[in-house]
């Protein structure tokens, strides 16, 4: 048992030193709550930069119509091939084409933002949302309505010229 002093071998002393450091932090923080870095999530939230790439959003026109024209450029640009769109004839002949289904498989999405850049009509954006928990794999298939609903409650209504 050479090389280790009696004090370190006596086991109680290192315990005391450790507890002492912990107590010091505890009592210091107890009385200096303000300068603590931790925040009380979910009541408090960290604000991310506007360029944060979170949960996708399908933007809408002023008349509430979905802006996406199902041109498939996002599906083409997506490296994870997780965007599946089926296009259909829009009831209004001036609009012609719209997505009947617009599914994003969040389990596959790598949140790279290529879809946002590919979109010619700014129909898909990556919003600030990052709470993506779910109980079942199917919860992660976000449908068109989810993505549009996502847009309404996250974005203050962005005015489009």
């Amino acid at each position, binding site marked *: 048992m050479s090389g280790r002093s009696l004090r370190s071998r006596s086991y109680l002393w290192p315990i005391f030193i450790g507890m002492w450091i912990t107590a010091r932090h505890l009592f210091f923080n107890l009385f200096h709550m303000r300068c603590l870095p931790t925040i009380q999530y979910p009541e408090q939230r960290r604000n991310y930069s506007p360029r944060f790439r979170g949960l996708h959003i399908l933007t809408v026109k002023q008349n509430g119509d979905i802006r996406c*024209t*199902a*041109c*498939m*450029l996002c*599906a*083409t640009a997506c490296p994870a091939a997780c965007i599946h769109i089926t*296009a*259909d*004839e829009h009831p209004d*002949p*001036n609009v*012609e*084409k719209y997505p009947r289904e617009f599914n994003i498989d969040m389990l596959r999405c790598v949140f790279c933002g290529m879809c946002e850049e590919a979109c*010619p*009509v700014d129909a898909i954006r990556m919003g600030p949302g990052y709470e993506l928990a779910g109980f079942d794999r199917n919860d992660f298939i976000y449908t068109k309505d989810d993505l549009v609903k996502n847009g309404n409650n996250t974005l203050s209504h962005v005015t489009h010229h």
Partner: protein
Amino acid sequence: MKTVTLTINGQAVTVNEGTTVFQAAQAAGVFVPHYCYHPDLSIAGVCRMCMVEIEKVPRPQISCNTVATEGMVVRTDTPKIKDTVKGVLELHLINHPLDCPICDKAGECKLQDFYQSYGLYTSRMEHEKVHKPKVQDIGTIVLDSERCILCTRCVRFTDEVTHSNELGIFNRGDRSELRTYDEGPLKNDYTGNLADICPVGALTAKDFRFQQRVWFLDKTKSVCTMCAHGCNTAVSINSSTKKLYRVEPRRNPEVNQSWICDTGRWGIHSLTENRVATPLKNAGGFLDATWNQAFSEMKRAITEAPEKTLVFLSTAMTNEEVVDVCQVMFALGVKNFSWLVDEAVVSETQPFDGILKHHDLSANARGTAEILKRLGLTNLGMKAGIDKVKTQPLSQVVAVGLDAAQGPLWVEVAAVIPTTTQSFVHATNHHPSFEAAKWVLPNTTSFEKTGTIVSALARVQKVNRILPAQGLARDSHALAWGISRGDDRSVPSKERAKTIFESSIQSWFCPGEKFSQFNEMGVAL
């Protein structure tokens, strides 16, 4: 035929007298941008894109109408030409609607393609574009006259190919508008070709509208088997979802120029519904069975009474399949073969409408007849075969390789089935007339097999597999192999087809052709 030699971009080219500079450039592998030129239509010379510079001629000339003469020096890549083409392209685009996101032609649109190679300018057009009627339903095609660049290909098509004079350009100047003269639907059988030859998205097929983006599709060369003409096709599928989206014509000046009829193009959809998915045993009602049971049953039935068995050979089978089936059946002692064809029309070699369509819906009637002759087997012919089953009790019928494209021929076969003790029908789709059959076995369609067929024009052409077999469908190779072995050990159909091709078909029909690199244009018999 006298030839002339000219130099294009410094490269000497020799062509027959009378060919245009454009065709000479094409022969020399020099690409010249064009919209209104089409190899199978007359020269319009209105899009003005195919400008080339010719020595000793002051102004750039359109190459599609300028006949090549001896010693002509042509340049297609001078800065002057690039500027001229860029200028003309810009004028094509100033009133063109920004429809790319919703336009089906995106990805194969010539405006996009030529903009990438000749345009790349920032648009200077700040004024209101000219507006024309947008989505118009003209039958099988959707017309958007705002996208139309008035290249008149479609007008020439309905004048020169279908002679139906339906499409025209009305009004004058930039108010010129393409539409049918009575704004009614198109009334010819070749409307699908309009969507192909339209270089932009003005004419798009309703069947393909918004279905898939073209860059997700993979094309495979094949041949249409919906009638005896054997038009060359290119079939597009989405290789990840294995879904078939489009059948397009493939240019073959000997057979179908650049056209296919609407039945061959859109008729395939009717074939994909109610396919026979699994082998079915008829015990008071059809029950799913396995190929193993089917094969052992067939082997047992045929070996028991080969002289009582009649084999119906569908004329939708490839040459290799016919040889395979006949050899196996002959080995089991069967003598009676008859092809399944409408004998009244099988002798017609020319299309009845003067363009492409044939009354004879069989894909490989000539091949089947030729093979039976070569194998020394008598072809009873359909009527005689059926009578033989009715009168002399040929108690067993094996109908091999039936394809829904054959259409109504089954009804006559079905009439015979109830009188037989044992009947096996190997078909692609269900048909009410099969109720009485003992066994119904799933067959592959022509998209799911590879092999050669002989068209009514006596031309040997190759059908290529595009999709995997649907459900448990097996082609006739697998059927023949299964019957000879009596069990279901799987057999590589492609290798079997290759060996049979090399052993017999090659020497009989097309010496010198290799199975894998078969001549895309087909070979005369």
